[in-house]
């Protein structure tokens, strides 16, 4: 579905009633815990745990309740300096009610740890049915040591994740839900978008 502002929305996941319900619960919980404006980071211990799915659903649900929502993705291999991140997030705070960051896998990117103390809340995504690892056990503790506020865990079924990844792979554009921005915001956003587009 093409939004008015030119963004593209994946319809197949968001119209599933079960997922919708869970997404509503998720967004309500995040809103209740963090209030607005808030920056939420989604991370996980392993790849394929449903970070993107969680981020997308959370953003879509928040946007449905007429919040100003920004969804962005940080690829694993990209490293950004702390100052850049801090400045960027300050701007997102002031321009959006909720900023949802689809971050990299924990411990594969220093950006995650850097963002930990800068964001308002962290959600941990985990795929149902995989075996636990040592990173799972240590992740929350390390994030909290770095000043992160881990709100909770979001579990996703493997086939739901796979379906989302398949559908995303078909889509030409980055999944992004955001209203029009001013020029300054646009430049910061352009930085992130460029990185995302390079990934796609």
């Amino acid at each position, binding site marked *: 579905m093409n939004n008015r502002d030119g963004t593209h929305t994946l319809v197949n996941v968001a119209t599933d009633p079960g997922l919708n319900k869970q997404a509503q619960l998720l967004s309500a919980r995040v809103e209740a815990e963090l209030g607005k404006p808030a920056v939420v980071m989604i991370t996980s211990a392993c790849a394929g745990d449903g970070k993107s799915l969680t981020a997308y659903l959370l953003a879509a649900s928040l946007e449905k309740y007429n919040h100003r929502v920004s969804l962005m993705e940080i690829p694993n291999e990209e490293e950004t300096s702390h100052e850049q991140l801090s400045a960027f997030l300050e701007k997102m705070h002031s321009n959006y009610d909720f900023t949802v960051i689809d971050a990299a896998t924990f411990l594969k990117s220093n950006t995650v740890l850097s963002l930990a103390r800068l964001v308002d809340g962290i959600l941990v995504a985990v795929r149902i*049915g995989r075996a636990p690892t040592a990173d799972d056990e240590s992740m929350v503790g390390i994030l909290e040591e770095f000043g992160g506020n881990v709100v909770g865990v979001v579990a996703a079924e493997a086939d739901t994740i796979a379906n989302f990844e398949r559908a995303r792979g078909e889509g030409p554009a980055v999944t992004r839900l955001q209203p029009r921005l001013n020029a300054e915001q646009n430049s910061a956003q352009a930085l992130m978008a460029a990185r995302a587009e390079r990934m796609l």
Partner: protein
Amino acid sequence: MTPSQQIVGNIRNAFGVIRRHSLLIAAVFSVLLAVSIIVISKTPRTYEATANVLVVNGNSRNDPTLSSLDLPSIVGSTVVLERVQRKLGITTPLLTMKKSLVAKPPAYRSGIMRIQYADSDRDRAAKVVNGIADELASYYTELSTARYDDDLRALDVEIYRQKKRLESIDRQLKAQGGEDLTTDVDQDGDASGSQVGNLRSQRTLAYADLQGDIAHAQAATIDAQRDILLGDPLYQELQSSLTKASADLADARLRYTPQYPGLSALQNRVDSLKAAIAQESAKALNNAGSASPDELKAQASAQANRAKVIALDQELAAENKKLSVASPLEQLRLERQEVFHEYQSVAARRATSLADRADALSLGSVEVVDRAIPSEEQTGMGRIRLTLIAAVVISIVAFGSAFLADQLDPSLRRITQIEGLYGKPLIATLRRTSRQERLLIGKPNEQS
């Protein structure tokens, strides 16, 4: 979460487990069911036959079982079972027969004992249990009368022998022209016995009396001599001196070595005292004069019995001499009398044994009152029922194995697992709606 939601959640989880491990459930069920069917089909059918015996107890007490033997033990004894094996010509091992046999003692106030036997062949089961019942009846009687039967057999042999001897003597008497002596062994004859026998008995008694009198006389003499010596003061004094000297000598021997000079003096003194005592006792006894009344009485009795023995010896000699010169006819008569006496005593013993045997039989017997009939009914459960029960049990095992496998599966599936791992609450579970749920909420055509 409300309790009902919890229950619904648990049920949903359980179905999830079953769905995830459906292959395991199917495999376990199939394998175990196949094994069960094979085992059940290979298990031989068992038929049970029952016979009842009545324990007839001659005891007048109300409870017939109180005085009966341990019948179940006898039923299962190797003696009875071996006889049954021989009689019926069966090759079933004794141990197998014992295991297949059940015999319970009669209930209180009942005389009926039930014997059950299980076998894979229904006809053989009935044949064996009937054989055991019959054998029990005869063995019980045998046990009651065994000791009397042995005696009776021996006595019958002896009676037959005596009868033959009598017949032989009668034939000889008839041939020698003697009176017609009947050989009817039941007729009473002259019971006086031979004169020689009587004399011998009398002589034995008289000789015993003589021995008794001699011993009595000796004892009386010893008593009299003791009395005499006790009344002699010099003898008593010498005796006490001897006692003291002997004590001194013993004491000196303990204290001193044999080279001590005083020892020989003490020894000499003891020896001289002994000699003096002997001299004094002989003197006292010589001076005593005549024997005491007891001695005289004992000696007189001994004399009389001695004379009696001598007289009897003379009479015996005369009778033996008479016999040796008696006519053959007379000898035959005497011999017949002797044999007839022996025959009578054996017959009396046989009558006593018969009476004892009858008494033993009156204590009770075992009678077979209900014989087994071959039956088509099998013991235990039928194969179909067994298979169904096995299927139910195996189903439980199969489902149980699925839940066990799920428990042992470390992968993250349960809320408690996830929350325990991260230490944070599970906020949402992202799961696509199932087809059934879509139908339920009226959205059947959504593409996933």
